[in-house]
């Protein structure tokens, strides 16, 4: 993994990556073409230190290709990538030991035990201190809940155990950045909960987490920042708090929407069954007005868009559909 990656000099050459002091993953005009198909079409990622970044997108939107480009597995057609302040894939040998990754499914050598698998993985690259290896492997197995698994070969593991082992591999060198692709795949609800707690704990101690997923709920519960990929384009990238910030309206739950309409008149923005959206960001004031007029109010809150609404508004349609120009090979 040496040599220059970028092949600029054509129109649309990438400007340098805009980065703040805290940028952990930054890309500039990152593109990947497979023949005529643009799998990734000029995206500018900005993941900052301390983020739990949710990278959302339908299947085939280019998520996996992007993750692979970040890690130097797929070589970009155009654009630049910076990981932990260094260019990728040129500086992969320096940067990647500081990155933990779970790429699509976990993969191990089935005939070997989990412990041997982790030991071999650690020994396969730089930055894994040989003297602390056995201790780190034990610690990380404990951390993901595989401490007592013993010498069973991995082929005897359940799907959830393999997922945990994959995560253990990513955590082996206490990485500054975790790149995870669908990390809760195959886990039972209890397991999902455990992993979520583990990731939040790691994030609290300073690990930046880049989480690629198509599960909106998972991202909504874990992430602080969100990027949405649609057909190879980054259509949205912002703080989750900003995206789901109050809209300036109040949501009123009432069995008598007609009465609300009569009392507040033009302030009513929408009526949806027993839910009425009213202009005004002060629920107390709305409540006072309605209750004062004798309207029964069963619930009252500031209106916030759900992540699902945000994503659906930004992304046009599922990329699994092959609509004309989207063409073959879009499913990468």
């Amino acid at each position: 993994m040496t040599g220059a990656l970028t092949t600029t000099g054509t129109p649309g050459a990438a400007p340098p990556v805009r980065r703040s002091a805290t940028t952990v993953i930054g890309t500039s005009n990152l593109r990947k073409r497979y023949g005529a198909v643009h799998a990734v079409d000029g995206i500018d990622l900005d993941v900052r230190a301390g983020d739990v970044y949710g990278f959302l997108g339908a299947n085939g939107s280019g998520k996996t290709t992007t993750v692979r480009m970040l890690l130097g597995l797929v070589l970009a057609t155009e654009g630049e990538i910076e990981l932990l302040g260094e260019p990728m894939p040129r500086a992969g040998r320096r940067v990647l030991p500081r990155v933990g990754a779970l790429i699509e499914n976990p993969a191990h050598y089935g005939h070997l035990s989990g412990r041997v698998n982790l030991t071999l993985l650690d020994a396969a690259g730089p930055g894994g201190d040989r003297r602390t290896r056995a201790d780190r492997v034990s610690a990380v197995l404990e951390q993901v809940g595989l401490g007592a698994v013993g010498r069973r070969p991995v082929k005897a593991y359940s799907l959830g155990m393999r997922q945990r082992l994959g995560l253990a591999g990513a955590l082996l060198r206490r990485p500054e950045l975790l790149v995870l692709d669908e990390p809760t795949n195959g886990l039972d609800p209890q397991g999902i909960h455990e992993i979520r707690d583990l990731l939040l704990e790691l994030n609290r101690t300073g690990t930046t987490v880049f989480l690629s997923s198509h599960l909106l709920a998972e991202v909504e519960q874990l992430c602080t920042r969100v990027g949405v990929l649609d057909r190879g384009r980054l259509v949205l990238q912002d703080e989750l708090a900003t995206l789901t910030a109050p809209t300036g309206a109040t949501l009123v739950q009432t069995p008598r929407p007609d009465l609300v309409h009569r009392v507040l008149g033009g302030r009513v923005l929408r009526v949806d069954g027993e839910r009425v959206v009213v202009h005004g960001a002060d629920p107390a004031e709305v409540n006072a007005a309605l209750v004062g007029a004798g309207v029964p109010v069963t619930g009252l809150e500031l209106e916030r868009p759900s992540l699902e609404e945000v994503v659906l508004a930004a992304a046009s349609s599922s990329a699994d559909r092959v609509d004309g120009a989207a063409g073959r090979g879009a499913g990468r």
Partner: protein
Amino acid sequence: MPLLRPRSALRWSLVGLLVLLLAALPSLVGRLPAADADRSAADLRAAVLASGDVAFSGYAQSAGGLTLPLTDTFTGIADLFSDRATMRTWYRSAQDWRTDVVTATGETGTHRDATGTWTWQYEDDEATRARVFPLSLPIAPDLLPSDLGRRLLSQAADDELTRTGAERIAGRDALGLRLVPADVASSVSHVDLWVDAATGVTLRVEVFGGDASAVGVVTGEPALSTGFLDVDFTEPAASVTAFTPPPGADVETDEGLPVLDGGRTPDQSPLPAELAGLPRQDVEGVERSVGVYGRGITQLVVVPIPGRFADRLRGQLDVAPGAVLDDLGVRLSAGPLGLMIATGPRGATYLLAGTVTSETLASVAGQLPTTGGRG
């Protein structure tokens, strides 16, 4: 398919360049020019004839395109002329040499010393001692270019020889010499020889011949070609050419070929002094009943053979493609090699073999003595 990125293209072109370089190397080495020398054909022939005491060792290959239809008897000769044979040789003098025919699974070595030869056959674990016979069936060592060249040129006249340029053979400058036999009876159209300029040792021999109807003749291809691939003109050690049967091996003695041993064949009328215009040669040690006719490259051997043996040979020749059957017997041309079983009126049978045309064989058969022989 993704388009080739510049880095990818660079690496692949690096590999491509390497392939080109390695592939071109052998052909470049092979094109080293050969130095020609201004030497006359007669001079070169004299050099070849004088090369019998040049010591050397070498690695040679012979390839014959002659498919002799012998599947039962004389298979050794049939293989010799139809197959590719690989030989190693160490030559100290005419009475001290060794030639191994090497195969993938063993070898057959012939070691010559002052009184005879040892033949070692590895796969049979057998060593055979033989004295030197004046006339015997050809064996692989006879196809060594050094030996064959001397033999072919020994009786050639100077007006049969022309010079033909030079070539690099086995890393040496070899001067070309072409022999076109003047004899009309000869089935050989010409022989190309390449002679080492420095020592006179023949490095390659190619025999062209046979009319187009003969079996195994490909126009423009030699019927027999033999040449050195490696040759080294330092004298080999005596220990290399010497032979002692290894412990445990079978040791046999070869009494010579019964067919060519006149003592065992019935009384025959003496063969004439000339057959079809070919003079009889006086070869010392050969039984009177066996006739060797011709001159130089045009050679014919006439051997009376017992009827039982003749029948076996006939059986094979009769069914061979290209065989001519008539009152005189059965004859066949394989490249420049003619072979005939001639039957006399009273059942006397003769084996005729040599480098003569089919017509010559026929006219020889017509002139054979018709009396004698139990048949």
